[in-house]
């Protein structure tokens, strides 16, 4: 036996069959590691029972941060550190600060979201991609099941996956 993570891969050709298969596999009490599709499949998140992404909260937090930093920066610069009379206005007057504040709010919330997504998804330079099956970028859907995550044996899992209409069942081990 080789060491490493041992996966069973069910290969499917049709999205409807995949969605049904996911439901049946999960009903059988098997934990699905991941499903790969060449394009976004409507209803996949529901079928896999994923909770809603928490990324909007991140956007809100970074947006608030950008908002606060922008106001702080401008009030400090123009109101305290380097006072200048512009257009006869007060040193620190709110209305001209709003466009900059708006831009920084948008910028920080967008960048914050992108980088959070990178971190959460473990996307980084020089990362060695784990490719389960090359055809997931072409025309096949693949359901990956981690054998160690499940209490049921390999043969039994393969049997259930076969019943759900998989075109092929492969096994793959990653070091």
């Amino acid at each position, binding site marked *: 036996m080789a060491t490493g993570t041992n996966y069973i891969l069910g290969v499917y050709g049709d999205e409807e069959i995949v969605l049904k298969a996911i439901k049946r596999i999960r009903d059988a009490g098997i934990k699905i590691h991941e499903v790969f599709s060449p394009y976004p499949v*409507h209803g996949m998140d529901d079928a896999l029972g994923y909770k*809603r992404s928490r990324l*909007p909260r991140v956007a*809100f937090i970074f947006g608030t941060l950008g908002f606060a930093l922008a106001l702080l920066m401008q009030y400090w610069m123009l109101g305290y550190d380097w006072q200048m009379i512009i*257009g*006869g*206005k007060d040193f620190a007057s709110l*209305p*001209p600060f*709003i*466009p900059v504040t708006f831009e920084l709010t948008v910028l920080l919330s967008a960048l914050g979201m992108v980088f959070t997504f990178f971190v959460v998804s473990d996307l980084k330079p020089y990362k060695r991609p784990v490719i389960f099956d090359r055809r997931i970028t072409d025309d096949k859907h693949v359901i990956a099941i981690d054998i160690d995550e499940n209490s049921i044996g390999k043969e039994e899992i393969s049997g259930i996956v076969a019943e759900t209409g998989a075109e092929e069942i492969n096994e793959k081990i990653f070091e």
Partner: protein
Amino acid sequence: MSEDKFVFTPALKKKLLIIKLVGLVLAVIGVVIIAFGGHGHEEAADAGNHFHWLHRVWVNLWINNIYVLGIALTGVLFLAIQYASQAGWSAYIKRIPEAFGEWLIVAFGLTLIIFGLANFAGPGHFHMFHWLDSSLYVEGGENFDPVIAGKKAYLNLPFYLIRMVVYFMLWYMMYRFIRNESIKEDIEGGYDHWRKMRVYSTIFIIIFAVTSSTAAWDWVLSIDTHWYSTMFGWYVFSSWFVAAIAAVTLLVIWLREQGYLPNLNSSHLHDLGKYMFAFSIFWAYIWFSQFLLIYYANIPEEAVYFVERLRSGQYAWVFYLNIILNFMFPFLVLMTRDSKRHTIFLKIVGWVVVIGHWFDFYLMITPGSLGENGGFGLLEIGLAVIFGVSFLYKVFMGLAKVPLVAHNHPMLEESYHHHI
């Protein structure tokens, strides 16, 4: 519900009439308070320009008329956008904005009558539109105003009235075309009606793009005759539009609570909520674009508009309330996905937006026409209630005329399965 038809029951009619009566009583009490509560500013006015409580009634009628007419008009615009963009999600609820257009014919009469009352009925030499004062145009006269005289080619009574009639004719004609096709589609089916509605909708949008701006100049901007703002057409449009969307949302939710629209799901509400959220931000964007440039350039003839509003105890609170109700509140409350999908949040925000944009129009019209004699009291509340209920009455009548769901809309099936 049998046949999916909205029934405008006598009980509901009675209820609306009672609310209308309450509005009337409030307005009368308001008038009594103003008329016998002392005028205060008489000594400043010359003999011909006495403030009379009727002036405040006229101006309030105008505010409500413009506001409600705008909701009806932009309701039709909302419908037209759905057709022009070939939207499928809204097919199920499209009869509600469609019924809004029924008010346009009433609004036509009201606009003419109230325009007449507010400018020519007095008492005294009261003109809500300052430019109607004929002495302004007498060269060498003591009231001669070169700025207003220079605008005479556009701002003169005959041309003004022609424009008013043309707007309403175009709007109502296009609305009738769309409505008639919609009714025919129910009976005959097929795609032809949908295609025709698409063409009419596109024409309506083009007409609206021009006339909404010019109507806003005519009916609202020209009250402050000296002042001008290139953002104003957009500003009035955005205020109307977000109020109309809020009204559609509130009505859709109310209909569902009454047991109609059984197939309405949270995705439909979500889309209406997004519309409301987005256009509240759009309104704020326009509002700020107008304010910032004037504030920054600080040219007296432009800045006076905001000075009138901010430097007076009467209007400063409305100025800030306007931003809180119409931007901050909807922005913060409708930000999350859940609040757009639950009726309780939509109802609260919908009401806040509808009331908030009334204040927006109040702030646009009152300071320029009544100045320091303006105010906010029972009269304002009462008249707004009367107008709101009358509008609802007409909309309900329009809803009851035809099935509540356009059965032969080619995208109805898509709308049933709307899922986001």
